[in-house]
C-alpha cells in the first residue's frame, strides 16, 4: 500500500523536485545513481522482521562479511532475542562456542583464550584499525552494527511529506542493498584508482575500496531460498537493519498502543472540554 502511495505521488513530487532542484549546482555529485527503494517486511506502521530472513542474513554476515567487518555492539545472546533472529538458547550457546575469545587476566596476570559464551560480543576480525587498513589496501572496513542507520539512500526534500506519512525509515537498508548489488564495470572513459571498485550507488565517490563481496552461490542456504547475489544482499541488509535497530518490532507495537491510548484520551478530553465550555460563548 505504501508503495502504491509513493508511486501515485511520484509525479507530483518529481515536478516539485524539478522546481526545487533547478538552482542546484550539477558538479560531480555522489552517488552517481539514485538508490531504488525496496520492499521490506519491516517497513511501514506494522512492519515486522522476517525471522528466517534474519537468520539467513546472519549466515551471510558470518560467512562473508565477518572476515573484514566487525559487529562490535552485538553479543551472541542478542541473536536469541525475540524480535530478532530468535535462535534457540542452545543454538546460541553452540554458536558462541564456535568462536575463540581472549579473556583475562587470570590470577597469574596472563591473558588466555577460551570458547565464546553468549554474553561475549562478536570478536572483531582485526585487532585494531591499523591492522584492518593494512589488510585492506589502506581502507578500514567500518563496523557494521549501526551501519543501516549510518547511511541512507539520498532522498530529495520534496519527498519529505510522503516519507513521513509512510513512516519511511528503511533508507539505510535500501542503500545497503543497492551498494551490494550495484557493482559494475566502470563506463568507458571513467578511470578508477587501483584497489577501488566502481559502484555508482556509493555515497562518497564513484568507487570504494571494497570489492563486490557477494557472488551467486557463495553461501549455501538450507531453507531453499535462492542462492543469488540479489537474495544475499536483501537478507544481509535486513539482518543489518536488525543489528542497528534491535527493538524495531517492539517499538512499532508499543507505538501503536500508545497512539491508540492517546487518541482515545484526547477524544474524551475533547468531550469534556465541550461540556465545560457549553454555556460560555468564546
Amino acid at each position: 500500500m505504501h508503495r502504491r502511495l509513493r508511486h501515485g505521488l511520484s509525479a507530483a513530487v518529481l515536478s516539485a523536485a524539478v522546481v526545487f532542484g533547478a538552482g542546484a549546482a550539477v558538479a560531480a555529485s555522489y552517488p552517481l545513481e539514485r538508490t531504488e527503494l525496496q520492499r521490506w517486511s519491516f517497513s511501514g506502521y506494522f512492519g515486522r522482521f522476517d525471522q528466517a530472513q534474519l537468520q539467513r542474513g546472519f549466515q551471510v554476515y558470518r560467512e562473508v562479511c565477518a572476515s573484514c567487518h566487525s559487529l562490535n555492539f552485538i553479543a551472541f545472546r542478542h541473536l536469541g532475542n525475540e524480535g530478532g533472529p530468535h535462535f534457540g538458547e542452545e543454538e546460541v550457546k553452540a554458536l558462541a562456542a564456535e568462536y575463540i575469545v581472549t579473556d583475562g587476566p587470570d590470577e597469574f596476570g596472563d591473558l588466555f583464550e577460551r570458547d565464546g559464551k553468549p554474553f561475549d560480543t562478536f570478536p572483531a576480525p582485526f585487532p585494531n584499525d591499523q591492522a584492518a587498513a593494512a589488510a585492506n589496501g589502506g581502507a578500514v572496513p567500518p563496523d557494521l552494527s549501526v551501519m543501516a542507520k549510518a547511511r541512507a539512500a539520498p532522498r530529495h526534500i520534496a519527498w519529505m511529506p510522503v516519507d513521513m506519512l509512510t513512516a519511511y525509515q528503511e533508507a539505510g537498508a535500501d542503500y545497503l542493498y543497492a551498494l551490494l548489488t550495484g557493482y559494475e564495470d566502470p563506463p568507458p572513459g571513467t578511470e578508477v584508482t587501483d584497489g577501488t571498485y566502481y559502484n555508482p550507488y556509493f555515497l562518497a565517490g564513484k568507487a570504494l575500496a571494497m570489492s563486490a563481496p557477494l557472488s551467486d552461490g557463495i553461501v549455501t542456504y538450507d531453507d531453499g531460498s535462492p542462492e543469488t547475489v540479489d537474495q544475499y544482499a536483501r537478507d544481509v541488509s535486513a539482518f543489518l537493519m536488525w543489528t542497528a535497530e534491535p527493538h524495531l518490532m517492539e517499538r512499532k507495537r508499543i507505538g501503536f498502543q500508545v497512539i491508540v491510548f492517546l487518541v482515545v484520551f484526547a477524544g474524551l478530553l475533547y468531550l469534556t472540554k465541550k461540556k465545560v465550555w457549553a454555556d460560555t460563548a468564546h
Partner: protein
Amino acid sequence: MSAESTYQPKSGFGRWMEARLPIMGLVHDSFVVYPTPRNLNYLWAFGAILTMMLVLQILTGIVLAMHYIPDAAMAFASIEHIMRDVNYGWLLRYLHANGASMFFVAVYIHMARSMYYGSYKEPREVLWILGVIIFLLMIATAFMGYVLPWGQMSFWAATVITNLFSAIPLFGEGITTWLWGGFAVDSPTLNRFYSLHYLLPFMIVGVVVLHVWALHVVGQNNPLGIEVRSKQDTVRFTPHATVKDVFASVVFLVVLAWLMFYLPNFLGHPDNYIPANSLQTPAHIVPEWYFLPFYAILRAIPDKLMGVIALFASIGILAFLPWLDTSRVRSARFRPLYFWFFWIFMIVVVGLGYLGAQTPEGGFLLAARLLTAYYFAHFLIILPIIGLIERPRPLPSSIAESVLASSGGEAGEAAPAE
C-alpha cells in the same frame, strides 16, 4: 498576584499551612481562579505544552544520565548500550531526542503566536524578553545535548560552533582553547558540555518561573489584542483553560509519539551514527533542523566575524521587538499591512531553514544573502515604518462584545471570573 488571596483552605492542616507558607493559595490564585480571556484559541495552549515538554526532557534526561558516559572513548558505545540493553532505553532516548525537536516546534509556534497577535507589546515587554532568554538557553542546551552521542555530526558541529569564537579579535584563539579545555574538541570538551547540558534545563525552569510570574502580573493577551476590561471578558483558569490545555497537550503528544515510534531517526542525520573521528570531516556539516535558519544567516556573510555577529544579532534583535514595532495595535487581525508582512517573514524564515541545509554556493548563497537581508529589514525597517503608515481596522470595544456578537448573542450569560 499582588491582590489578597481569596483562597479558603478547607482542612485544618490547610489553614495551619496557609498561615505559615501560603503556597496553596498561590497555586489557587495562579492556576484555578486566575482570570483568562474567554476568546483564547488553541495557539494559547503552547505555553502549557512547552512546560510539559520541559518536564519531559528533564525526566527522560535524568534517566539517560544514569547510563550515559561522557568520555570521548565511551560516549558512543554508552548510547548504543542504552539503545540495546537498558530496559526501554531505546524509548527514553528516542523520546528525549525527538522531544527536543518537538520542544522547538512548540517554541517556534509560541513565538510566532506572540508575533502575530502582538503579545510582546506594552505591558508585556519583560514577559517577552524573558521568553527570548528561555529560547537562548534552549538553543545552548540542545546544541550541547547534540554533542553528547559523540557521532560525526556531534563532533563536527561542536568543532564548527566553538571555532566561531576564534573570530573574536585578539582573544579569539585563547577563548576557543579555554572552551575546549585543550587544543581541539575532545574528552574535556565533551565533559563540560555534559555538565552544562545537565545544568541549563534547570536554569530554564528558573526563567520559566519568572516568565509565568510576569504573565500573571500583566495577564494574557488574546486574539483581539485588546485589554481585558471587565469580568465579562474572562473565564476562570480552571476548568476552562485547564481542560483546553490538557486536551491540546495530549494532541501534541500524539504527534510526538508518531515521530518517536515511527520516524525516530527521521529528523536526525545518519552521520551521527558514525563514531566521532577528528581525522575525517563529513562532506556536509549540518546542524539539527531547528538551527538551520540561523546557520543560513551565519554562512550568508562572507566575513567570519561579521557572520558570527549576524548570527547572534538575528536572535538578539528579538529582544528589541517591543520597541521596533511602532504600531499600538497588537493583533494582526486589525493590521492590514502587518498581516501580510508577518506571513512573508514566516516564509522567509522557512526559506532560510531550507537554505541552511544546502551548500552555500551559487544560487543558494545568493538566496541566503537576500533572505538574510530581508530578515533584518523586517525588524529594522519594515516594522518601524508600517506601524506609522498603516491604518488599522477599528477595534471592538471589548472582548465580551466581540465574542457575543460573533456567536449570535444566543450563548447569553458569560461565566465571569470569581
